[in-house]
């Protein structure tokens, strides 16, 4: 057993303002110094969470992330700076944290957590903060915490909303991520911050709340043996229920504290009779988290249906129709002259496909609705479809072709062809017009 920690003179001064808070005191401060906390993900959640945990004086702070700092991170990832773009996030964050508090041992894990590395990485720590950005890694972290008996603080944020959960607390008794979300979201509905957008202070507030929960959890044990973050109802031995804090910046009220269930019967991680996970299965790759969460259906078109941005630039002066299928808000940021904006959802809706499975009422075939007004009457007009990166545009090309093929009366031919602009507007900015904004 290592000797219990003591505080240096500088540390008394540094932590004085929080030590005089009755729920902390000197015992709480020593518990913090005795703790090793791992932050997985040095992004929008991890930056503020790490900043406050460094400030508060935890003994060891581990940072796990395999990414490098990008300019598009800086509006929210407050540990990173313009001068550190291109550096690894772990290095950038350690630099930032060391400046806040040099008394802490910082450990960098400069890689993305995988089933093969999860147990050995998490094993060194008392508490884990899930600040990651994908369902697969969230299930991986939760399973590993259950198997290793570590409490887990999990938060997430997108656009103007955030969710906060304290899981596996106390270990083996509190609900895990699978208990709360037994079924992963359909892959098509999963948006990253890069796709869906994120307001900096929204993800920031969630990260700060994670740090608060971490401090509560780490300093709770010795005080009165009551763990924070959950309703512990020891008196009547009712199951431990987990709370979720929900933040929605544009709703009134904007914070909601939801009472969720406790451990789920039949949970393949928590229910010992139904458990399907183990450290062995984890390390030898038998638990396939990517397959469990699924991958997006690729609706790709053939290379002969695509056009390079450079080639499109050459034919721009000829008669054609350019359809931009990005959301209206992105169209408003920048667009190509002469294009029309039909967001992908609207685009699909305006081109209904016949549903042969539906029985026809009275066996009378209804006339198909007229084609949308934007579809060129001159069938020789080529149609080009563009989006940000060239994914939705392929979906749109495929759908439009299917739609036209389904029209019986021959108005379905587009002699000039329907083309996907390869790589989208990002590629346009790289290869053709350097002044075109990348966002």
């Amino acid at each position: 057993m290592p000797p219990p920690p003591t505080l240096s003179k500088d540390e008394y001064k540094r932590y004085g303002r929080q030590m005089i808070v009755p729920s902390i005191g000197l015992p709480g401060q020593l518990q913090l110094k005795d703790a090793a906390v791992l932050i997985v993900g040095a992004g929008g959640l991890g930056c503020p969470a790490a900043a406050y945990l460094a400030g508060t004086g935890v003994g060891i702070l581990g940072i796990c992330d395999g990414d490098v700092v990008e300019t598009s991170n800086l509006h929210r990832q407050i540990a990173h700076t313009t001068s550190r773009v291109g550096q690894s996030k772990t290095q950038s964050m350690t630099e930032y944290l060391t400046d806040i508090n040099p008394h802490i041992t910082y450990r960098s894990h400069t890689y993305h957590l995988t089933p093969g590395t999860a147990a050995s990485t998490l094993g060194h720590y008392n508490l884990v903060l899930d600040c990651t950005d994908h369902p697969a890694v969230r299930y991986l972290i939760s399973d590993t915490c259950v198997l290793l008996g570590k409490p887990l603080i999990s938060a997430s944020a997108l656009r103007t909303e955030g969710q906060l959960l304290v899981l596996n607390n106390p270990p083996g008794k509190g609900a895990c991520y699978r208990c709360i979300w037994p079924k992963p979201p359909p892959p098509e509905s999963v948006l990253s911050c890069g796709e869906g957008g994120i307001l900096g202070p929204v993800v920031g507030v969630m990260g700060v709340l994670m740090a608060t929960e971490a401090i509560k959890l780490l300093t709770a044990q010795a005080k009165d043996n009551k763990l924070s973050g959950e309703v512990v109802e020891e008196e009547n031995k009712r199951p431990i229920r987990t709370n979720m804090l929900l933040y929605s910046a544009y709703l009134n009220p904007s914070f909601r504290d939801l009472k969720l269930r406790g451990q789920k019967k039949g949970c393949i991680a928590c229910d010992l009779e139904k458990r399907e996970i183990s450290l062995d299965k984890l390390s030898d790759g038998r638990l396939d988290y990517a397959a469990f969460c699924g991958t997006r259906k690729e609706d790709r078109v053939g290379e002969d249906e695509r056009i390079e941005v450079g080639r499109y630039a050459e034919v721009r002066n000829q008669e054609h129709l350019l359809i931009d299928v990005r959301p209206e808000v992105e169209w408003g940021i920048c667009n190509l002259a002469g294009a029309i904006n039909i967001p992908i959802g609207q685009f699909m809706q305006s081109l209904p496909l016949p549903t042969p499975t539906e029985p026809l009422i009275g066996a009378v075939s209804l006339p198909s609705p007229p084609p949308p007004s934007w579809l060129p009457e001159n069938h020789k007009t080529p149609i080009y479809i563009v989006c940000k990166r060239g994914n939705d545009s392929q979906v749109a090309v495929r759908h439009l072709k299917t739609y036209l093929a389904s029209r019986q009366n021959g108005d379905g031919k587009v002699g000039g062809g329907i083309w996907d602009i390869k790589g989208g507007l990002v590629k346009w900015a790289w290869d053709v017009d350097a002044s075109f904004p990348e966002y």
Partner: protein
Amino acid sequence: MSTFTILYFAACSSYTSRLYEALPAPLPISKLYSVLEEKYAGITEKVLGSCLVTVNLEYVDITGGDGHDMIQGEVVIQPGDEVAIIPPVSSG
């Protein structure tokens, strides 16, 4: 007409294009998803399947069959209740 408020979060608010709305009450919880499916075709498969549901800030078991013993009998959403549909959010 008596109504309850339904709040749509994350992917659910994207799918319905709204943050909240009023729906007729009372409504047995087991009918909730079919009411939503009628209003927003495809929502069950694309969003609701992985969501959790709360009524007045408390979790309710929408499937009715996962062996959880916290909810006795079927919950009926009452006028004035606040229902929330919460999909998992994984980004951060």
